[in-house]
């Protein structure tokens, strides 16, 4: 029986089908996995140079490998190109035992490649975004082809985390290229070689990148012949491609998840964003100097209501910069929603005198519809206690130009709604809160000057005993909770959608795309 819908389909599809054109839609070569691997905040489409990458590591680790990598729970740093590693008691010597493997062109991988890569990554002239973070490495020793030793001038708590993002590069292929020419050298997008389970095959500018299986991969021949990373201008485009079956995987916005939740053809992957969202109180703006005002803001915002009604429960309230249990001590103030208390705190602080009803700019770079709804809710809740904020949504470059300006207009970002990566390495938020990190030294854009907080960070960063480190970060958390350098709000979940046709497919919404142990050689379709 021909239904009205099928009649409409036949009518509209007829011209396409008559010419045989419609049939190619969604056609893919056999045993190929296609996905939007660079869609969303973890992606960095079009960037193939790992030295300049600030995201996109999920894709890069399909053909390149770092020395060490996070496990798939983002909890532990384990070996990748290093089969094992050890750190000396004084935290000044890192010894890596290297895998016996070969580059995609057949040349042997050795410790010389490790030394070459680390030295290149330390050289800012190469465009490396790791130069500052690897500054503590004084030398790289290579006693034999299978051992690399990093000697540090001072302990660096974040070194292993940084090393997970430094992809080891082939000295024999790159040594002849001057470092200054590397950032825009064609090698990256035409003939890069790595040691990973897939080989770089083809990049079609702005469209897709294709990789083919590396049959000689030391972890076993990949289960699929190729993997294709398609580029999408928007998440909506990726969602359309997912739903039409053209791709089998993509990151999606939280709003899109409901469309896939009960669809047996898809699997929803949910994970921690590792980004703490906060209201930043610009400490150069006098209204925020009084702790009672900052406490009033916290009590004015009904975080539970926003998490439940706007995020659909897919967020965890943050009472400091962390939500990971290891770094959150007991007895924190949860700042429950309490309008009367907020009003009382403001009255006590003399809010009418220090600001009154004057509008305060609430700047953000989050421009997705969900974030705009969150901003509207925050605006309404703060208005209820007498704090008049006006949200201003701008794009990322505009936001950065305001908060990093050489001569800032403090009132243009008197308050911000922003996020900062808070893990897996807890030391990462130091750059946004320690007094020593006030621009131009670091990214303490809210100009937080709180000696207790800076001291807590310094103690945590300088802790050489790994067993004691969580307690140090709990101290950081306690100070954040009591002093409120930021009004910490929540850590949201992020989502990916995978076709149920994919087997043994590992993906997590890791910040900056990881990297983490995804074992792409095991993926099948």
């Amino acid at each position: 029986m021909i239904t009205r819908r099928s009649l409409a389909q036949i009518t509209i599809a007829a011209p396409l089908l008559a010419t045989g054109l419609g049939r190619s839609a969604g056609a893919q070569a056999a045993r190929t996995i296609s996905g939007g691997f660079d869609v969303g905040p973890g992606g960095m489409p079009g960037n193939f140079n790992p030295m300049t990458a600030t995201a996109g590591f999920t894709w890069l680790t399909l053909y390149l490998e770092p020395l060490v990598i996070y496990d798939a729970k983002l909890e532990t740093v384990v070996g990748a190109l290093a089969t094992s590693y050890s750190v000396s008691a004084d935290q000044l010597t890192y010894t890596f035992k290297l895998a016996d493997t070969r580059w995609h062109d057949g040349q042997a991988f050795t410790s010389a490649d490790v030394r070459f890569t680390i030295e290149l990554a330390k050289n800012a002239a190469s465009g490396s975004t790791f130069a500052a973070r690897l500054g503590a490495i004084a030398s790289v020793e290579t006693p034999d082809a299978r051992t690399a030793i990093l000697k540090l001038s001072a302990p660096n708590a974040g070194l292993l985390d940084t090393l997970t993002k430094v992809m080891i590069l082939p000295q024999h292929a790159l040594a002849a290229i001057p470092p200054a020419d590397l950032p825009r050298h064609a090698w990256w997008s035409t003939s890069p070689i790595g040691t990973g389970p897939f080989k770089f095959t083809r990049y079609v500018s702005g469209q897709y990148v294709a990789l083919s299986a590396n049959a000689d991969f030391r972890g076993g021949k990949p289960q699929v012949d190729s993997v294709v990373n398609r580029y999408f201008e928007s998440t909506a485009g990726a969602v359309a491609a997912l739903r039409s079956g053209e791709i089998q995987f993509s990151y999606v916005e939280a709003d899109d998840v409901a469309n896939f939740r009960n669809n047996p053809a898809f699997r929803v992957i949910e994970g921690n964003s590792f980004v703490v969202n906060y209201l930043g109180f610009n400490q150069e703006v006098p209204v925020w100097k009084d702790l009672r005002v900052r406490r009033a803001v916290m009590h004015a915002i009904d975080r539970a209501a926003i998490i439940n009604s706007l995020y659909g429960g897919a967020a965890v309230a943050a009472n400091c910069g962390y939500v990971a249990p290891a770094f959150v001590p007991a007895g924190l103030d949860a700042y429950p929603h309490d309008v009367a208390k907020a009003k009382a705190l403001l009255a006590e602080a003399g809010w009418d005198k220090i600001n009154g009803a004057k509008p305060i700019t609430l700047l953000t770079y989050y421009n997705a519809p969900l974030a705009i709804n969150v901003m509207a809710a925050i605006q309404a809740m703060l208005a209820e206690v007498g704090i008049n904020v006006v949200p201003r949504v701008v794009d990322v470059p505009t936001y950065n130009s305001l908060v990093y300006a050489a001569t800032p207009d403090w009132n243009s970002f008197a308050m911000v709604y922003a996020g900062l990566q808070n893990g897996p390495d807890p030391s990462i938020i130091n750059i946004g809160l320690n007094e020593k990190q006030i621009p131009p030294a670091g990214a303490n854009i809210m100009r937080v000057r709180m000696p207790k907080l800076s001291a807590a960070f310094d103690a945590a960063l300088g802790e050489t005993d790994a067993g004691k480190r969580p307690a140090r970060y709990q101290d950081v958390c306690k100070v954040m909770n009591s002093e409120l350098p930021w009004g910490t709000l929540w850590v949201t979940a992020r989502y990916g959608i995978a076709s149920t046709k994919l087997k043994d497919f590992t993906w997590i919404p890791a910040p900056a795309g990881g990297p983490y142990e995804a074992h792409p050689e095991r993926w099948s379709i």
Partner: protein
Amino acid sequence: MPRTLRYAGRRLLAGAAMLLALSVLVFLLLRAAPGDPVDAFVNPSVAMSPQDMTALRERLGLDQPLPVQYLAWLAQAFRGEFGYSLQGTGEPVLPLVISRLGPTLLLMATGLSLAIVLGISGGVAGAVRRNGAVDLGLSVLAFLGISSPAFLSALLGLYVFSVRLGVAPSGGMLTPGVPFALGDLAAHLLLPGLLLSVGHTALIMRYTRSAMLEVLNQDYIRTARAKGAREISVIARHALRNALLPVVTLIGSTIGIAVGGAVFIESVFNWPGMGLMMVTAVRARDYPVIMGAALVIGAFVIVLNLLTDLAYAVIDPRIRVG
């Protein structure tokens, strides 16, 4: 003919001056916009130190005074180079822009061809059957088409034809990982081309209808009919040819507007053309790519306008250029 050539030469010289002015304007507008390529590069959630940002600015020459930056760009442009993209691995701008020009021209040619064929046919049909059911139906469609912004029709088209009906690819120009096939290209082209044509079809249809109605009331049409010419010949040879002049003007000016429409269509359908490249470049404050693309688009519009003016003389011998 020499007069036409002199005219074309003068117009091209004026066009070159306009391009120079355009480059200054785009350069200044870009620098006036908040944020620079380094600001766009830094993810606020993954902090980077301002010292690293300063080092990046120095490497990209963004720390130089504006006149120095512009003159350096101009010197490059006179050598036929437009620098390197500041995104990804830094593709050279000129080959990048040229590689994106083809897909945009293909998309625009498809959209405009469809618009011209459908618009003129619809306009003629509406005028010939004035106030009839066909005319009324076409008028309603034309108004719908004119009222539909490109981004709306593009999103609706994507949802209906790709997601719901599954009869067209959801984006891209070719199926990744599959050898090139003309049918594959056509399958990817048809839907965005059709959606790009919607607004232009409607406009051309309305213009053609109104021009045809005016011409059909002229004495020479009555004379042609009185002489026993067949109706099809009256419409096609006598009426349509004379009615086409304003329509050709419209089509000429439509090309510039179509570039704007292509930006939306390319973004929604991930069509690897100039529009998509420009959107990405503006978001990344990729100055060299924006400058290069603006000049190429400017040159394209200038040349097409010149060709349109020259086409007048071909269509209507009474018009002399120069």
